[in-house]
């Protein structure tokens, strides 16, 4: 069954994903529940879009600066890791700390190989945006009919 924590983490991740889908589905009628399955680490939520020539990854990383983030690519393997520092001011009494701190790492297997030399990464308003051009072999080719 589950041999490693990461398996359970992945399972919960899937359940969270399902829950978010359901939340969106019923979003018109009820306020979505804020409940989250535990264990899901501070790993940022991510979207993956596919265009003809590239993939686009977006990740929520509020409060992180570009020096706090690391992106590694090898073939079709992508890893986003980083560290979220506490921005708690000195000498203040703490009432609530919901914003998690600490390191995270998340890896993806992209649907196709990407050209790691041409990757473009931008960080704007707390959203990391990666544009990953597909490797030549993975690009769609138009076949002309004779």
């Amino acid at each position: 069954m589950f041999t490693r924590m990461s398996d359970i983490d992945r399972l919960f991740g899937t359940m969270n994903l399902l829950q978010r889908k359901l939340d969106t589905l019923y979003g018109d009628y009820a306020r979505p529940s804020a409940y989250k399955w535990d264990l899901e680490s501070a790993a940022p939520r991510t979207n993956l879009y596919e265009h003809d020539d590239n993939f686009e990854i977006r990740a929520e990383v509020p409060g992180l600066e570009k020096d706090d983030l690391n992106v590694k690519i090898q073939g079709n393997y992508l890893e986003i890791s980083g560290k979220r520092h506490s921005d708690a001011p000195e000498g203040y009494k703490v009432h609530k700390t919901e914003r998690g701190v600490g390191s995270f790492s998340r890896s993806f297997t992209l649907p196709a190989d990407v050209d790691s030399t041409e990757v473009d990464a931008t960080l704007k308003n707390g959203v990391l945006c990666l544009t990953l051009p597909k490797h030549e072999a993975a690009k769609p080719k138009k076949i002309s009919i004779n």
Partner: protein
Amino acid sequence: MDKAKEIAKQEEKNIEKTREMYEATPAVDIYENENEILLHADMPGVVKDDISVDIDNGTLSISGVRKLETEGAVTYEEFSDVEYIRSFSVPQTIDVEKVEAELKSGVLRLHLPKSEAAKPRQIEIKTA
């Protein structure tokens, strides 16, 4: 009116309703010292113009709308357009005129200064 009819009527009423945006509760940190209360809220992807902060009758409401400009086929999506909404009760001792807000890399930071009257004061004891 029987129930089936009632349900049918409800649906008719809703037919023109446009889709509301998915609402989310932003995670916040709240700190306090003698001079002010600080509130930090995570709102990734929200731009300055789409944020509103209101203080009315002892209630602080923050709201931020995120509009993602997306194109291409979605392979998977874990976050989307969302409206971050959250309200807090603030004590009357907050000086509403002097509240400051800043937005940096998706984090909204509010400074809520306490009014002079509410600050703790050291009372000097005079010897007779």
